[in-house]
């Protein structure tokens, strides 16, 4: 409780110092509830370079939020900060109302943040089912001694992991691939498996780093459907980095545009499409184009 008030107070103070961009992108249905993610003045320096600076964002509990920007804008760095792969130099990250200061990536995941990676990171020598089962690791416990002695609880647990893993794989129609080695899957399937594995950890916030990279238009269309389906079914927040503007503009309710490590615009897809700063960041200044 005290933590929360503390935070609210800090927020009020910090708002005074630096004006947070006025456009709120949280959908109406999520207002009044603790947001899935709240970042305040988040930043990290690499040497002297401010890779990410003054990053403020609020993501509602069931919001799909896009994080876009030109190459090298710091989008993946933001994900690495949110999951504590990098320790932030400044600022606060609140997940479901809880401060993540001092937590390691594993603990942040247990708080409810799961992610996929731009360069796919699966457990390549394990099977598809085992990959998902590892994701279920903290959802159900079975001790080492129990497993080594093959006590009844072990068999019950294995059955549970098996059933739950297949159930999750079914979202992407991948149950039939359960016994395949993850590393041998085609690219698109590997991306989908990464999402299933992240979902298995029962997150409140799912971070997708370029989920449509390398997919053809029909695969992308299917992915879009599935992202919305996941949000509706699991009632979670999804934040995604994507270069496919069709995907971003169609499924994201809020969009945050990053350039040189700073937020240059926030708003609904319509607002972003009309925003001059965004157009400039992507296409360069109008004058230069004409010249």
């Amino acid at each position, binding site marked *: 409780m005290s933590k929360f008030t503390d935070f609210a107070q800090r927020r009020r103070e910090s708002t005074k110092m630096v004006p947070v961009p006025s456009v709120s992108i949280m959908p109406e249905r999520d207002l009044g509830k603790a947001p899935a993610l709240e970042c305040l003045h988040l930043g990290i320096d690499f040497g002297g370079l401010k890779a990410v600076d003054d990053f403020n964002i609020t993501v509602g509990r069931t919001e799909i939020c896009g994080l876009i920007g030109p190459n090298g804008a710091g989008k*993946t760095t933001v994900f*690495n900060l949110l999951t504590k*792969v990098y320790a932030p130099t400044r600022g606060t990250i609140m997940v479901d109302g809880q401060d993540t200061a001092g937590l390691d990536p594993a603990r942040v995941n247990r708080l409810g943040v799961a992610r996929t*990676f731009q360069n796919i990171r699966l457990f390549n020598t394990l099977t598809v089912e085992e990959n998902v089962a590892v994701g279920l690791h903290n959802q159900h416990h079975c001790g080492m001694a129990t497993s080594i002695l093959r006590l009844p609880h072990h068999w019950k647990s294995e059955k549970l992991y098996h059933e739950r893993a297949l159930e999750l794989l079914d979202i992407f129609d991948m149950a039939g691939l359960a016994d395949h080695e993850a590393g041998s899957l085609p690219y698109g399937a590997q991306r989908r498996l990464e999402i299933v594995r992240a979902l298995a950890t029962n997150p409140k916030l799912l971070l997708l780093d370029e989920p449509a990279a390398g997919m053809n238009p029909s695969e992308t269309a299917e992915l879009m459907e599935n992202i919305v389906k996941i949000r509706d079914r699991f009632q979670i927040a999804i934040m995604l980095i994507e270069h496919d503007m069709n995907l971003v503009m169609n499924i994201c309710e809020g969009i945050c545009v990053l350039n040189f490590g700073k937020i240059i615009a926030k708003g609904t897809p319509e607002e972003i499409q009309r925003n001059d700063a965004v157009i400039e960041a992507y296409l360069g200044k109008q004058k230069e184009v004409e010249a």
Partner: protein
Amino acid sequence: MEFLANLINGMSLGSVYAIIALGYTMVYGIAKMLNFAHGDVIMVGAYICFCAVSYLGLPAIAGVALSVVGCTVLGIVVERLAYKPLRNAPSLNVLITAIGVSYFLQNAALLIMGSDPKSFSSVISLPALRLFDGALTISATAVLTILACVAIMVALTMFTGKTKMGKAMRACSEDRDAAQLMGINVNSTISMVFAIGSGLAAIAGVLMCLAYPTIMPTTGSMPGIKAFTAAVLGGIGSIPGAALGGILLGVIEIFARAYISTQLADAVVFGVLIVILLIRPAGLLGKPVHEKV
């Protein structure tokens, strides 16, 4: 005075470790492999020098030269036959091959030279230096060893920094594929590194046997491990690190032997290694590697 004598002895032993560690670290830097057979090259070098002087009657300096040449050739041959086919194999397979080469060299030496220790003192013996009216006795061997180490360090630093081949070597260590795309002959560069490392090992072998004058087929194995430890201590892949690690290790070993316990000297050496690695996980002069996410 005793302290000073120990310090000099330690630096001398450390210089030998440093010279061997240079070979380890350079090979690791470029081929990303732990060359466990490196220690046995020392033994081969010492035997060649021994044979040249006591059987062929050559002067000591010719013996040293012959042993450097012999080990250089050995290094190149071993690399070509055993390691080159494994360039893209998992690192553990390369490690096991290196262990196989180590067994091979030891057992070949056992067959050729026999298991009885050969006395090296008959080959080269240098007088001791007496300073401060005899209060401090330093063996000329110790001085020679330290000087040799300094000379080698200076030469290597110039070589890697200034020459074209040295730059090629550093480029290959940094990124082998990119170096290849820039027109560097990676295979010959790796061969060169093995040649240099093995040549240095020959020098180290002779120097070591000046201080501890017996040669056996297993002579090289413990100094080899210590030198490997020294290379890691300094930060494996780093040339100044190998020198620093080697000298530090030698000094610690001699001091532990003198002031703590002869039997526990090795335990102290390895203990220091562990402590240093816990404080600096990439060694004293090594750069920590961050995985890109």
